Each structure stands twice: as structure tokens, then as C-alpha cells.
């Protein structure tokens, strides 16, 4: 601030005696505080003061770009020959060999190296470096809580997001996983959506190992059980197709459209046959068809899905086929919630559907027979997973209603009492009937999107051990490593689970018997009440009438 103020004053006026007087205090302002506010004042009874002497740290998270690993190798077949020797000419090679073998240095070198190699060979023979000790000890009882660990996520390389609809592990446990990608919503496929599905290797999650270039997106697929290079698949338009990993990405053959299913081929299963080339498929068009890969021109057989004695055609959603129960038996979970059991080789075509199990309120998405007790099977639909006995029409056991729709599920291949369910909310539930029946022993939130598929690998070595793949609606497949407790069979488990299932079966049987008896009793009761209350027959009536007339006739004559 610059304020200039000039004045003039004469010298003689300087230094005069001033006329100062005391002014006394003057009040400039007296503003009283607001009494209302003062009343509202509250003493804070206590305060918390935190004191720390530790150095301040801050957490930072960064999402690094995925490390892309590339495997490369080199095959060295022939080489090291001098320029003038053509190794394809046997004569030149022999001559050159003879020349070298005469060389003194060569002889010395061979003698020296021979001694070294001999020593190594002897050493390897002497020590079995792969010996496993303590083999005879019983397996340790595990008491750690079950857990899973996310190993990696296999992301669909396509730019347009498609759901991972089906997963299939390579049967030899080498950690290869085939994934079918498609969008199942009717007429909601984005334009230009790629139709390719992929085969991944767990060892290299950044890029697929092989691609399956189908003309139409695949809905389901599975490795052939005999020829592990064959992958059978069902297309969205209902065609059956198959790929050979040795022959490249293009499909080897496909069923003709006019003989295929007319709706998405939701599930198929390899059936037992000599060549291992037969399969059965089901679709929401309401039929089951049997095929042979060697002649896909026409189905071997075809069956329309109807309940026994029913008229309505039921759309097939999932298929269950296990040879231990019988090579001709199968089960189909339908869109309407009914589970149909069938036998392919029935005498009458009408008898091919042998039983139906009702109870689910919506489509049945998964059917799976217990690998240890094939009589019992698991179905997943609406909000529950149910365990059934083939012989009973009511479920042996039902899980409580889950907060969201269940989408997939299945038994553990290695433990009789464990099964898995996936939900629309992105949660994988693990149920262990050996431990508890009312709630899942483990719930893992795998993704924020609906889960679409689940495949638990059986067996496996090295990195591929104890793996489960969980497919998600955005095309990601999360690979989970299950804890040992979830995979290894517990002490006595098979016996306990078996007796539990038997107990539940007899309970259901008794309930059914009771209900039947109660029904019969009610029927009898109803029949009895329908009868007239007085038991006077016509003859009695005539007799009474006669007596009456006799008596009255007597009184008249008097």
C-alpha cells in the first residue's frame, strides 16, 4: 500500500508544548454473545487421540501388464558335417566317418568321454533319485479349513464378450482345457461376434493353445474319451460337429442342418461304443439324438422327450450318461424342470422314457451322478441343488434356497460327499455332506458376473493338480486350485456318505408309504361316509309295513 500525504509546516511551530488531556476509556462496541447458542453448547465427554510412533506408510496397487510367455524350440536333426560332405549321401558319410575314426585325437577323446559317461550311468543306476519314502504311512488327517486359490484367469481373446458356456478338461490330466464361447440369449448376439472357441493350456494362460474355428458359436464341447485329440461339440444352430487337434482348427465334419436339432444343442455325451465315436445329444427342441462321428449324415436314432403318458414335449437342457449304471441308460434335465430317465434299448418306443422326477421350479441346468454311488444323482436348477435316488420320485436331500439362481454344478470326482454349485451372482459354493448339510462349507466369489460353467479336473499332475475351471458370462475362465481337503477322500468318508444316503432313502420311502397309507385311509373313510346312515334294507321295510298293517287291521275290526 502506498498512500502519499504531503503537508507543509513552519519551523517555528515545531516543538511547541502540546495540549494533551486524558480521554478516559471509550466503549467502541459491546456485542453480547447469543444466549440461545450458549444453551445449546454441550461438553464433549471424551476424545480419542491416537499417537503412533511408526513411520508412515502408504499402499499402492498397480495392475501390471500380463507377462506374455512364448515357448520355442529347435529341432536339430542333422548337422556338424563339413562343407564338402553331403549328409544325405550315405557313401560320403561313411567315408568321412572312417576318416575321423582313424584320427588319433578322436580315439583319445572317446576313451576319455567313455569313462565320464560310464561313471554317470553307474551313479544313476545306483541311486533311485525318484524314490518316495514313507509310502506305507496312512494319509494324514487334514483339519485345515477348505479353501481355494485363484491361479489365473483365461480371458477370451475376442473383442466382443461372449460367455464361456462349457468347459472340458483333457482326459489325461495334462492341464488342457477346452472352452466353448457363445451368447445364449435369443437373438441378442452382437453383430460380427466371432464364432471361434479355444483350447487352453494351464501352463500358458496368456494365449490359447489351439483354436476351434466353427462356423457357428459352440454351446457345448467335450474331449473324446478314447482319442484325446478329438473334440466333439454342439453348435448354437443345433448341429453336431467335431474337431481333430492334429488336423488344425477347422471342423472335421458336421451333421447336416436338416437332420440336426432345430434349437441350440445344449448338451451331449460320449456313449460307450467300440470305436468310441458314438455320442448322444439333446437340445431345447425337445429331442435326443444318437450319432456316430463316422457317418454324421443322419442320426442313428432319435427320441422325442415326453413324460410317460404325457403329451407335452419337454426341451432338453442337460444330459447325464454314465456307463457304470448301464450303457443304454441316460437322463435328461429339461427346460420345464422335469428330469427324465430313459433307456435307449427299450422294447417299445413308448417305454424308452422310464421315469420322470419333478420338483424343480425352472430349467435343470446340471445333472450329475455320484461317481461312488451311481444310483444317486445331483440336479441343479432354480435356487436349489437336489440329490435324488433313482427309485424315488422325491429328492433325498435338497439344499436350502440360495439367494440367487444357480447355474451349474456337479459332484466332486474324488470325494463322494462333496459337490459344487455356481450361481448367477458369481459365487461358487462348495458343499461337503461329510461335514455339514445345511450350508456350504465354502463360498467363493469368483466374479461379479453370472457364472456359466464349471469343470473340476479329475487327476492331473504337476501344475494341473486339484484344478477347477469356472466359466463366467464375460468369457473369463477362472482357474481355481482347490485345497487338499476338498480333493482327497477323508477317513471312512465313503461308508459315512453311503449310510447317510441310505438313511435318507429309507426315510423318504417311509414318508411315501405313510402318505400312501394316509391316502388309502382317507379313501376308505370317504367311502364309508358316502354310505346311507340307516341300514334298513328293502326286505326289512316290507316286513315293518306288513307288521304295521297287521296291527292297524286288528284295531279296525275292534
Amino acid at each position, binding site marked *: 500500500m502506498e498512500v502519499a500525504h504531503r503537508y507543509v*509546516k513552519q519551523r517555528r511551530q515545531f516543538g511547541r508544548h502540546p495540549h494533551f488531556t486524558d480521554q478516559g476509556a471509550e466503549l467502541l462496541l459491546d456485542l453480547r454473545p447469543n444466549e440461545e447458542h450458549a444453551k445449546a453448547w454441550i461438553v464433549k465427554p471424551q476424545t480419542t487421540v491416537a499417537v503412533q510412533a511408526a513411520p508412515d506408510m502408504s499402499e499402492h496397487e498397480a495392475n501390471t501388464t500380463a507377462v506374455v510367455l512364448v515357448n520355442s524350440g529347435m529341432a536339430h536333426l542333422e548337422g556338424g558335417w563339413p562343407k564338402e560332405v553331403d549328409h544325405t549321401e550315405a557313401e560320403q558319410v561313411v567315408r568321412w566317418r572312417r576318416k575321423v575314426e582313424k584320427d588319433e585325437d578322436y580315439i583319445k577323446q572317446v576313451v576319455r568321454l567313455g569313462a565320464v559317461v560310464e561313471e554317470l550311468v553307474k551313479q544313476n543306476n545306483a541311486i533311485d533319485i525318484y524314490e518316495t519314502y514313507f509310502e506305507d504311512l496312512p494319509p494324514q488327517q487334514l483339519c485345515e479349513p477348505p479353501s481355494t486359490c485363484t491361479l489365473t484367469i483365461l480371458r477370451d481373446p475376442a473383442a466382443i464378450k461372449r460367455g464361456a458356456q462349457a468347459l472340458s478338461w483333457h482326459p489325461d490330466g495334462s492341464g488342457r482345457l477346452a472352452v466353448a464361447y457363445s451368447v445364449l440369449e435369443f437373438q441378442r448376439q452382437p453383430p460380427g461376434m466371432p464364432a471361434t472357441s479355444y483350447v487352453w493350456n494351464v501352463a500358458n494362460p496368456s494365449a490359447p493353445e489351439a483354436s476351434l474355428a466353427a462356423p457357428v458359436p459352440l454351446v457345448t464341447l467335450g474331449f473324446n474319451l478314447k482319442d484325446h485329440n478329438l473334440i466333439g461339440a454342439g453348435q448354437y444352430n443345433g448341429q453336431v460337429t467335431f474337431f481333430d487337434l492334429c488336423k488344425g482348427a477347422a471342423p472335421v465334419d458336421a451333421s447336416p442342418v436338416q437332420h440336426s436339432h432345430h434349437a441350440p444343442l445344449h448338451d451331449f455325451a460320449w456313449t460307450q461304443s467300440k470305436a468310441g465315436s458314438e455320442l448322444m445329444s439333446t437340445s431345447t427342441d425337445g429331442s435326443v439324438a444318437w450319432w456316430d462321428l463316422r457317418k454324421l449324415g443322419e442320426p442313428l436314432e432319435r427320441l422325442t422327450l415326453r413324460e410317460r403318458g404325457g403329451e407335452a414335449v419337454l426341451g432338453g437342457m442337460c444330459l447325464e450318461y454314465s456307463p457304470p449304471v448301464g450303457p443304454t441308460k441316460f437322463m435328461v434335465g429339461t427346460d420345464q424342470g422335469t428330469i427324465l430317465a430313459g433307456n435307449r434299448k427299450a422294447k417299445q418306443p413308448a417305454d424308452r422314457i422310464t421315469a420322470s422326477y419333478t420338483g424343480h421350479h425352472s430349467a435343470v441346468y446340471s445333472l450329475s451322478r455320484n461317481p461312488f454311488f451311481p444310483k444317486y444323482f445331483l440336479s441343479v436348477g432354480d435356487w436349489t441343488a437336489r440329490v435324488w435316488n433313482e427309485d424315488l420320485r422325491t429328492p433325498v436331500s435338497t439344499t436350502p434356497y440360495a439367494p440367487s439362481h444357480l447355474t451349474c454344478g456337479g459332484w466332486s470326482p474324488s470325494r463322494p460327499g462333496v459337490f459344487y454349485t455356481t450361481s448367477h451372482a458369481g459365487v461358487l459354493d462348495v458343499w461337503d455332506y461329510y461335514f455339514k448339510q445345511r450350508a456350504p462349507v465354502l463360498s467363493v466369489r469368483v466374479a461379479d458376473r453370472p457364472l456359466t460353467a464349471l469343470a473340476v479336473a479329475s487327476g492331473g499332475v504337476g501344475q494341473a493338480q486339484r484344478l477347477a475351471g469356472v466359466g463366467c458370462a464375460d468369457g473369463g475362465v477362472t482357474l481355481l486350485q482347490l485345497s487338499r481337503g476338498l480333493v482327497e477322500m477323508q477317513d471312512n468318508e465313503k461308508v459315512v456318505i453311503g449310510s447317510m444316503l441310505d438313511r435318507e432313502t429309507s426315510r423318504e420311502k417311509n414318508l411315501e408309504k405313510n402318505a400312501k397309507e394316509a391316502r388309502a385311509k382317507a379313501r376308505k373313510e370317504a367311502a364309508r361316509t358316502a354310505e346311507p346312515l340307516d341300514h334298513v334294507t328293502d326286505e326289512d321295510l316290507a316286513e315293518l309295513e306288513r307288521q304295521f298293517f297287521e296291527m292297524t287291521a286288528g284295531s279296525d275290526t275292534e
Partner: protein
Amino acid sequence: MAAAAAPAAAHQQLDPLALADFEAGLDGLHENDLIDEAEVDSIVRESILHTIGDTPWADSKVGTWTSHIIEGALKKLAALQKPMKYICHVSLTQRAGAGLHAASCSRWNQKTDGLLSVHWESQTVLALVTVFWVAL
């Protein structure tokens, strides 16, 4: 500085009466040189209004407000061309129900020197500006 030079001219004839007058209290100042309180009041109010106006209270602005009010008032006071020294004092508080008490005490020439205090309030701001002037 014609106005400031005038009293000097008046005192050149050594009039005993004028001298007595001088002794009596005006310290050689002319009547015109005295400060009109109403004028100062309007200057200060204008300065406050100009600086704060309708702006709501903000802690961060207090420093600039204070210096602007003082600067504005002193510039206008200097423009009056009176032979005076000025002292300007500003108190700014937020109007939140708290009380404010201010008083001053001085020893000076009662006839020439003086003070004026302006109490100004808006919805959220309370200002107390006190201006002292002291003859040279």
C-alpha cells in the same frame, strides 16, 4: 498543498490573540483542517461495502479483506488533504453468536484529534473498523 499552507500564513502576523488561540488548543490548525466525522464514517462504510459486500464469511479471505478495507479507507482519507496522521484498525469475525467487546483509551489533544468506530454487519460477517486521527 494550499490548504495546509493557509494556517501558516494566518500565524505570520504575531497576533497575541491568535497566539492565545493557538495556546488554547488548536495547535495552530485552522477550523477547516479539522476532521468531519460524518465524512470519515461514509468513507469507512463505503470501503467495507466495496470489499465485503454480500460475500459470505470465509476464513481464507480474512487477510485480504482486512488489508483491502484499510487500504481503501486510508487512500480516501489521504485524499482529504488534512494535516493529520491516521490510524486504522479492523476487527473481522464470523457472525456465529459469539460476543465482541472493544474499547479504547487515549491521551491526545481533544480539540483536534478524534476517533470514529464503524460497526458493520452482514448475514455472516461482523466488522468493527476504528479510525483514529491525530494532528501533526
